[in-house]
Structure formats: structure tokens, C-alpha cells
């Protein structure tokens, strides 16, 4: 049925976009940035509501995107300026934003049903119903267009600047000495992360986005021997999780997003077990190199 195709297409694009930026987050030990953004967007939607006076999708998306960007940028800046660990910096920024959002709600909007769960997070099962109508023409689901646009931007940036991203991710010192602006590329990456997460929240809800940012990239990390192969493996794992998860959701009549996240986890566990089993059987380290500074 056509609606199943729309759902699968949306889920696939979300999965591939998230796993692509997820690879860089995992390598930079910032994988919970997505989780952080899922909380801090509360401040964005409260501000958007107070300024625009409505809970329309457009206002909520703009507010969430801006605060998402700010969360990523500020976490990064705090880490660089104060030399705090990345995880601590993320933890400081997002809890502070979330708390600010809670206070603003109790002052200005205590009687309004305003939280990210009900105004921002989408439900992937209903993606086929929320279509863009242009004149008489039905152009397909809105969420698919948004996440499709984000996917193309991500893809182009990674293809064009692959070497730069690699250099900055693994050899920041070398990059600096070559005159490459490390902070420019970091902030660009942070921008991609927050755009991808907010667009994905709108399409499929929070839990799946957080899962897809971390799990496929981690599975890929276990197998890959280069950045390029890690990106391919991550995309493959993400796609497999979408197909298996969708089948699970149809079979159990359960939430599609949760089923995909569960299957992503199952694939990771299977990968770990297979690697362990091979290690014991052959008595060798299957993956000798670990993606780190020594790796090209």
C-alpha cells in the first residue's frame, strides 16, 4: 500500500541522515547530543509559543531548530573555552535550557498544554496523512519533504568536504597547522546535527532519533576500519533496522518508532556476539585497528 511506502521512505531517510551525522558524533564522543537536544527544545517551543501566540507546526519547528542550534553550539563553545569534558558541557547546556523552559511555562503558560511531546514530536504512523497540498496536487507527506531536504544537504556536505571532516575529526592539530579552521568545521557539524535531529523529531518522535544517532554508528564502529566504511556500515545498519523494525511493528501491532529502535539494538547485540564468537573461535582479534588518532 502506498502509505506503507511513504512511512518506509520517511523512516529510511531519517535513519540514514541520523546515522551519517551519528558517525561523527560517536567518533567525537558526543553521541548523546541528540538526547540533549530532545530536552532543550522545550525552551524553543515555549519561546516560539510566547512570541507567535500559536502552537502551529511552523512556529514550533523554528523555535526548536534555533534552540537546537544553540544547544549544540554552546555545548561546543563551553567545552573549548572552559576545557570541561564534552559530556559535561552538553549536560550543563541542555539541563539549563530545559529548566528555563519549565520556569517560563509556569510563569506564562501554565494553563496551556505545551510540551515537546505533544507539539513537536511526530508520529511516524501518521506521516502519510499529513501531506502537502499545492493547488490541486497532492505532493506527498510534509515530513518526507523536510527530512528529504535535510538528507540531501547532509549528503552534499559530507561528499564535498569528506577529507576536511576526516582531518578535523582525527587530526585537529595537523588541521590547525595546515591552516584549516577546526572550529568552523566543528560548528558546521553541530549545525548539521541539530537540523537533522529537529527535522527527525517532527517526523518520527524523539526516542527513535536518539537511538538512530547512536546505535547504527556504534555497530559500524565495531566493524569499520576507515571513516568511509564506517559511514557505509552505519547507513546499512540503519536501513536494516528500519525494515526489520517495520516488520516487527506490523506483526505485533505496536509503535513503529519503538520497534525500529529495538531492532537497531538487536542488530548491535548480534554484531557484538558474532565478533566475540569469531574471536574465541579463531583466537585472533578480528578488528585490530580502532578508529582513533593513529588511523587514516
Amino acid at each position, binding site marked *: 500500500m502506498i502509505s506503507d511506502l511513504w512511512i518506509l521512505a520517511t523512516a529510511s531517510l531519517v535513519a540514514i541522515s541520523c546515522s551519517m551525522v551519528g558517525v561523527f558524533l560517536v567518533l567525537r564522543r558526543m553521541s548523546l547530543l541528540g538526547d540533549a537536544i530532545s530536552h532543550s527544545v522545550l525552551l524553543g517551543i515555549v519561546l516560539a509559543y510566547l512570541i507567535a501566540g500559536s502552537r502551529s507546526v511552523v512556529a514550533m519547528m523554528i523555535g526548536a531548530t534555533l534552540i537546537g542550534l544553540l544547544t549544540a553550539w554552546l555545548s561546543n563553545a563551553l567545552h573549548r573555552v572552559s576545557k570541561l569534558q564534552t559530556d559535561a558541557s552538553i549536560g550543563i547546556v541542555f539541563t539549563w535550557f530545559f529548566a528555563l523552559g519549565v520556569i517560563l511555562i509556569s510563569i506564562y503558560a501554565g494553563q*496551556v498544554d505545551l510540551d515537546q511531546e505533544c507539539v513537536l514530536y511526530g508520529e511516524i504512523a501518521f506521516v502519510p496523512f499529513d501531506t502537502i497540498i499545492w493547488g490541486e496536487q497532492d505532493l506527498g507527506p510534509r515530513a518526507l519533504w523536510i527530512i528529504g531536504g535535510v538528507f540531501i544537504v547532509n549528503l552534499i556536505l559530507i561528499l564535498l568536504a569528506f577529507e576536511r571532516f576526516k582531518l578535523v575529526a582525527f587530526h585537529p592539530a595537523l588541521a590547525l597547522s595546515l591552516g584549516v579552521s577546526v572550529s568552523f568545521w566543528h560548528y558546521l557539524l553541530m549545525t548539521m546535527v541539530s537540523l537533522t535531529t529537529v527535522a527527525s523529531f517532527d517526523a518520527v518522535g524523539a526516542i527513535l532519533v536518539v537511538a538512530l544517532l547512536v546505535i547504527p554508528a556504534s555497530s559500524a564502529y565495531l566493524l569499520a576500519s576507515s571513516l568511509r566504511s564506517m559511514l557505509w556500515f552505519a547507513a546499512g545498519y540503519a536501513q536494516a533496522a528500519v525494515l526489520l523494525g517495520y516488520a516487527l511493528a506490523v506483526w505485533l501491532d505496536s509503535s513503529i518508532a519503538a520497534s525500529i529502535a529495538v531492532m537497531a539494538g538487536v542488530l548491535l547485540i548480534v554484531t557484538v556476539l558474532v565478533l566475540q564468537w569469531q574471536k574465541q573461535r579463531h583466537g585472533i582479534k578480528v578488528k585490530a585497528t580502532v578508529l582513533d588518532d593513529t588511523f587514516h
Partner: protein
Amino acid sequence: MVFMSTFLKKSSLIGLLCLVGWQSSVVAKPVNVVVTTGMIGDLVLNIGQKNVEMTALMGVGVDPHLYKATHGDLRRLQKADVIFYNGLHLEGKMQDVFEKLSRRKPVYAVTQDIDEQQLHRYGKAHDPHVWFDVALWYAAGQLVLEKLIQHDPQNETIYRHNAAQYLKQLSKLDDWVEQQVSQIPKQQRVLITAHDAFGYFGTAYDMEVRGLQGISTATEFGLHDIKALKELILARKIKAVFVESSVPKRFLGALVAGVNEVGRPLKIGGELYSDAMGLSGTPEGTYIGMVKHNVNVIVRALR
């Protein structure tokens, strides 16, 4: 030729049989109605009875704020002939989905015809919990009746008959609630619950309503709110506060402990149904049963 004519006769006979079969299947086939909350489902079942097949997306005891769609819900909405939802943002972001869907199939918010003046407004948003004013729910019932007739005009008389009987029960219920609540002394007629679901109830039956939480179950209450409530309880000699079936009980525990500390007896008066009805098959599993339960609990504890 003979063969040909018998064949024609046969086929026309078969065609006729098919036509009869098809027509009778149209008549017998119930209208497939999908609703969001159990309360709306109850309205639809009482008015549609055997002529509708009703599915409620939000199960028993599910807080609409926490509802998660399953894969099957997509199919249920696609196969539905008519869809009813509450509106006023009770369903959150799903409301956008329903508004979009209404361009393609009959989708109605049961609150869509309620006069703006009768709605509680908070800034630009409305309080969605209209069902606790039985008169407003009566209006929702009239909308369900009108739309069912519009969709299935053949059974208009049946729907009208069912609705007349059910709506009569709702009017009686409305009078009964008013009469019951009036038994509580005016001074102590304050309903304190964990979340603000009883605003319409308060307006309709002349009862002051205070909630610890805001409309959204995600809002957290401030220290100031607890202190103000404690002072109100002491000043007005209120005997009980109430917990709700879809909101955790511990929220009110602090308040009760605080008042008892001062040496005034305050009890938890019982559990009220707010955003969802009770188990199906029990009296509280129907709208009327739910309202009666709530009113009995409130009146017994505060009188």
C-alpha cells in the same frame, strides 16, 4: 441459440442475485467509526448502537497526553468511514493529522460546534476537558447524531430514536449532578485535584476548582502553589483532596502531609476519572457511570 438465451437468462439471474446481495450487504454493513477517547466512543455506541462498529484508539486508562500510535492505528484510520476526535488540542499534534485528513474523509471534532463563549480560554489556547460539563457533552452528542445521519441517512430514524433516549439520560444526569453538588456547603465546595481537568465541571455546577498541575501533565507545580493551596484548605475547612486515575498519586501526598502536620484532618477523598474512563464492563467504563462515580466520590468526601 437456445444455449445462448439460457446463458443470458442465467447470467442476468446471477447479476440480479449479486445486485440483491450487494444491496443487502450495504444495508447490513455497520458504519465503521473510529474515535480517539473512550468518552467519544461511548457517545457513538449509544447513538449508533447496532448500526456502527466503533474503535477507540486510546485504550482504557490511557492518558491522551501519553498515547502512542501503533502500526494498526494507521490502518484503522484509513478504513474508517467516519472519525470523531475531541479537538481543542486534547490529542496534541494528532490534531494536525485530523485536520489534514478531514480534506479526504469525514473527520469531526466533537467540540467543533461548541460556542466560543462557553469554552475556557487560557491565552490563545482552550481547555479541552469539556466532557465534565454534562450539558456541553450533550452538545457533543448532538454533533455525533447529526454527522452519523449525514453519513448514513438511511438509518436516520434509528439514530434519532437512540439519540433521543440517550440524550434524555444525559439531561437527567446533568440535573442529578447539580442537585448532588448543591448538597456540599457553599464554603467547602472546592475541588482540589492533581491536574486541572475539572474546570468545566466547576463552572457548570458552581464549584471552585484548584489543581496542583497545569493542563499539561508535563508541567510541574511550584512550591508557591502548594503553600497557597494549604492556606486555602485551612481557611475554608476543606475535608478532602482527590487523586486522578491517569495522574500519579504521589503529587498530592505532600499536600496532605503538610495539612495534617498543622493538626487538621485532610484525607484523600478517592480516585476520580479525568482523562480516561474505567475498565469496560464496569459501571465506570461508560460516560454516565464515570460522571456518577466522580460526583459520588466528591460529594461523599466533601459534604
